[in-house]
């Protein structure tokens, strides 16, 4: 096996993988695919120019999962990959992506993942992407994911994007086009600590009538960290869009939330809600009255909030 214990631990953290999962799979380690397998309904192969993967999920596939995690353990590596995912008509599938970086050096380890996702008519996708970094404080772990997703008529997609911890710098860019009767839900959960910085830009264009989009962002910023959250909803037809941004601020951290709603039709209904604040004192008191110490109470609240 090419994967050692460290690799397996990272895979477990970002993709809940213990051992090699059955079914379609691609594991990218330090810039090269070390494990790749297709399943009868999910083809995993190189894309045309060799810059990444092409994953094709056959129309009508029912309840299948493909894992495409990325791990970086070689210090100072700058890895960039372009992946395309096509979820065929009427298919119902789960994509588990994610990236884990272990960096013990003083150098910068960086992964830029550009994912293009096409959800064909009537298809249903659940996409999960977890990011995690670990190693020496002197090194830097940088993750810049770009996601471009198109949801065709009657299709639906749920993207869950999580930054577990340990990522020093991230610029996340997500662009979505949702067509007639299509629906999209984006759940983003980010934790930043120490001097870490995170920026998330989400732009959703509701192109078709009766399309819907929902963005739920939960952020926790600790230490001196800084987060910027930008969400743009553009409603071109009669549609429903909602952005919700909830953030807990601790220590000396800062968070900026910038919503933008752009309605181009009278029956585009777009809403936005944002709340940034510290941990509610009454929540701490409640948990402490059940016997938790203050630290345990804080952790319980944060875990729940980012769950």
């Amino acid at each position, binding site marked *: 096996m090419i994967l050692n214990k460290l690799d397996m631990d990272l895979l477990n953290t970002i993709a809940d993988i213990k051992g090699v999962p059955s079914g379609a799979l691609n594991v990218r380690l330090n810039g090269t695919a070390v494990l790749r397998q297709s399943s009868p309904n999910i083809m995993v192969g190189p894309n045309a120019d060799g810059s990444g993967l092409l994953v094709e999920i056959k129309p009508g596939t029912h309840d299948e999962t493909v894992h495409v995690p990325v791990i970086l353990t070689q210090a100072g590596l700058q890895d960039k990959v372009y992946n395309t995912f096509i979820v065929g008509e009427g298919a119902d599938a789960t994509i588990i992506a994610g990236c884990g970086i272990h960096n013990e050096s003083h150098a910068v380890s960086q992964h830029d993942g550009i994912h293009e996702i096409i959800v064909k008519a009537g298809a249903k996708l659940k996409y999960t992407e977890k990011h995690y970094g670990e190693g020496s404080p002197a090194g830097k772990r940088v993750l810049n994911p770009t996601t471009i997703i198109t949801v065709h008529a009657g299709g639906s997609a749920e993207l869950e994007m999580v930054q577990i911890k340990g990522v020093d710098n991230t610029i996340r860019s997500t662009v979505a086009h949702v067509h007639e009767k299509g629906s999209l839900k984006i759940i983003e959960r980010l934790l930043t600590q120490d001097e870490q910085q995170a920026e998330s830009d989400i732009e959703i264009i509701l192109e078709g009538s009766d399309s819907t989009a929902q963005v739920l962002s939960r952020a926790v910023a600790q230490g001196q960290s800084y987060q910027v959250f930008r969400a743009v909803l553009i409603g071109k037809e009669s549609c429903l869009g909602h952005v919700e941004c909830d953030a807990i601020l601790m220590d000396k951290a800062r968070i900026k939330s910038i919503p933008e709603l752009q309605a181009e039709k009278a029956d585009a209904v777009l809403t936005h809600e944002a709340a940034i604040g510290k941990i509610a004192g009454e929540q701490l008191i409640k948990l*402490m*009255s059940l*016997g938790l110490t203050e630290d345990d109470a804080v952790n*319980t*609240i944060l875990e729940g909030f980012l*769950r």
Partner: protein
Amino acid sequence: MLKMENIHMQVNNDSGEDIEILKGINIEFAKGKVYAITGPNGGGKSSIAKVIMGIYRHSKGRILLNGEDISELSLTERAMKGIGYAFQQPTRFKGLTIGSILKIASPEADPMHIRKYLRDVGLCPEDYLDRDLGAGLSGGEIKRIEMAQLLLRSPLISIFDEPEAGVDLWTIQKLLGLILSRYKNNTTKTAVIITHNEKIIPMCDEILVVDGGVITAQGTPKEIWHLIKDDIECKVRYQCQGDVIYDIK
């Protein structure tokens, strides 16, 4: 079992001045008894509970639990020692499920036990265990979950703050039955119910009336229930002095 000796408590009001909320409270809660604390709104009932729990710190006096002075103990330490409080206004949490708060309330409770207490407060475990303790719950539901936590914890002293508020008639009767049967004649524990409910008050072993930060009456229902009613009416009339519309006599 739990004794408050000359307890004073003050808070800082919005203009930054100290105002005294509790002005010399003396109470002894004995094991095996169920107490009712009543009195007008703003009288100081919840403040007494919060001082016992350690949420508010008293400025004068002592609190003893089975003879041990717990005045200096923190909120967490008091919870571990056996003090429990079901809040008048339960807190909502985003992301914490009902199952997980019950597990926090009683880490060693097995799932069967947790389910039982949910059923006891009239909630079907299948429907509620995985639900968020957040904005989606109704006022009565969250209140019942608050009580389930305290019943499950079953500390030495359980203080229920207005359990009847927002809770339907049938559930509150069942709950009251549960509290009375569990704590009356209990050899180690006691329960205190802060309440305005005229059905609950006379069923308790002892009644305390708190008004203006002091205890204005104390006794068994037989001794004082009829007096208290009149007293409270007087108080209401007094509060609305000059406002003829509210003169209830």
